[in-house]
């Protein structure tokens, strides 16, 4: 299969572009997606190519961006609404949780909401407390929504195409820390990945690392470092926080009996909590050590680079956590 080396944001762009070419119902709306060419340049050139009908700059109105997209989706379009960064999705929380995610159920299937909300997620560039969230697990708490969190350009492409073609609302998050990182991306038009399927990104027999998005990157770096010391880590990328596919995690755990969960987000009531809870529940007899969690520190993110970096997870912290249990 033909491949091209692309950074993740170009992979996202390619997916979006292909889907817009394929299906006239697909359109983008959001702040700065048009004339400005996209805050993260994902929709670069779209306004020129597809015109203002399908590339819609919006006011700074997150409630309406999400809510109008819900209505358009119900009515038969396939909106891809961009919330510039996921921090601003807090302003659209009601539209996403109480409308996008509930309408299909509440009216007993009379309406569908084939909507994708794209949002750049993450921290690490001194964006400070209000602009440094990775709240994917918070959104994944609620049934009715899918939550996608790709870790590679190829996955980003295949998952976004799946999200756009699916009949359900999807929150599609894109790690800012991964946007510029290149990787091989299949060129064919029908590179559509299944929804809710995890991926083993590296095989190993000594410890299972479970993560998503940027956490996968740290996990792979850590795995490399650990391999030098004779510890073989299996790295599982969940890719979707909803639907959550833990089968490969359980399978892996049966052989490794040890697990570290790696998350970009805050530690409490979070991703790591859920994964650890499920492993101990379903794999109790296989546990040789407690499940460890590597998360951001439980602080609002500060501006100064030095202390911001202290607060964040990284490969070394993963290595250290692994060494506590193997």
């Amino acid at each position: 299969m033909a491949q091209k080396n692309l950074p993740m944001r170009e992979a996202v762009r390619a997916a979006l572009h292909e889907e817009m070419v394929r299906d006239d119902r697909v359109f983008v709306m959001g702040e700065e997606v048009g004339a400005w060419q996209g805050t993260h340049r994902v929709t670069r050139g779209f306004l020129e190519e597809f015109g203002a009908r399908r590339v819609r700059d919006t006011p700074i109105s997150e409630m309406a961006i999400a809510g109008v997209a819900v209505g358009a989706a119900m009515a038969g379009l396939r909106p891809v609404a961009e919330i510039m960064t996921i921090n601003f999705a807090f302003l659209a929380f009601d539209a996403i949780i109480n409308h996008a995610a509930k309408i299909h159920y509440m009216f007993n299937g009379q309406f569908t909401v084939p909507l994708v909300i794209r949002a750049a997620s993450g921290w690490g560039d001194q964006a400070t407390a209000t602009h440094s969230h990775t709240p994917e697990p918070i959104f994944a708490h609620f049934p009715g929504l899918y939550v996608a969190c790709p870790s590679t350009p190829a996955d980003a492409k295949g998952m976004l195409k799946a999200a756009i073609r699916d009949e359900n609302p999807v929150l599609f998050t894109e790690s800012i820390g991964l946007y510029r990182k290149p990787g091989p991306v299949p060129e064919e038009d029908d590179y559509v990945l299944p929804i809710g399927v995890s991926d083993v990104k590296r095989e190993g027999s000594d410890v299972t690392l479970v993560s998503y998005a940027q956490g996968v990157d740290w996990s792979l770096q850590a795995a490399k470092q650990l391999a030098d010391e004779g510890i073989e880590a299996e790295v599982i990328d969940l890719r979707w926080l909803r639907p959550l596919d833990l089968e490969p995690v359980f399978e892996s755990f049966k052989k490794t009996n040890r697990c570290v969960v790696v998350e970009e987000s805050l530690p409490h009531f979070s991703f790591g909590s859920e994964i650890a809870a499920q492993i101990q529940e379903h794999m109790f007899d296989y546990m040789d050590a407690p499940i460890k969690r590597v998360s951001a520190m439980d602080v609002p993110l500060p501006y100064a680079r030095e202390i911001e970096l202290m607060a964040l997870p990284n490969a070394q912290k993963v290595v250290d956590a692994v060494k506590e249990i193997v």
Partner: protein
Amino acid sequence: MTMQSVTLDKQRLLDWYRQIVLIRKFETKCDELYREKRITGVYLHLYSGHEAVGVGSVAALRQDDHVITAYRDHGIALARGMDPNRAMAEMMGKRTGVSGGKGGSMHLASRELNFWGGYAIVAGHLPLAAGIALKERYTDTDNVVLCLLGDGSSNNGYFHESLNMSAVWDLPVVWLIENNFVGMGTRIEDSSGQTELVKRAIAYGMKEGPRVDGQNVIEVYDAVSEAIDYARKHGPVLMEALTYRYKGHGVSDKQFDEREDLRHELEDWEANKDPINILGSILRAQDSDIEPELTRIAAEADAVVAEAVEYAENSPAPTYDDLINNIYVG
């Protein structure tokens, strides 16, 4: 007054009369059923007093136009032609209800009727209305969305963002505020800096529609027809219908019984501005022999309501399968 006054079309007036009476009787029954605990749950918001707004405005729509509203939705549902049996079944939480018993009284909807539902989050349906209108603009039809909302809702952020976006994008929406001067127990002058709500159109450079007498179905019909016509051709309109809430905010709430002044206000509206009386008087003035027909209409409405109750009561409750269905498509 208007571009297409229908005052002389007797059949049409009689049909509106039938609808208004049916809504009133349907809801009076709901109230009763609630007090008898045959309709249960915490929320049930009656439309009593507002009927002419719903009937007159929905009548101004074509079949391929759209309507959406808040939780005070029974009247809109029936005006749009929803089967009273299935509406009542929904109130009773039955499997045969329009929303399978999963939505309840606040979430009646019918996809076939282009009635996009009642919504319980105040003003949460406004961006949906704009989104449905966007689909029509996008696909280059001339269909229009009628979005009903309360006066209280117009103070919510959703209102501002949705109306502004509809203006920037010239979306075909008629924003129709049912101004009953109150949200729960808060009077409009305590919640809105601007109490003449149509003036808010200025904030969006939007067409400012009229404030119309919401108790006179003909006036509502004419004014909404004009607004729809404008929306079809140009873009959004903001208008108001002045009306009154006869019952408490929800059936489990008290009305204003502790406030003398408001009790008198209510009595005045019921006595002098009731939509049934107003339309009845017009019909009687047109045709002095009409009384038997009006009586027949009332009796038929009673029968429809009785049948709806029976249908609903004999319907099965949803099952575990219903509980876990339709969370996701497919």
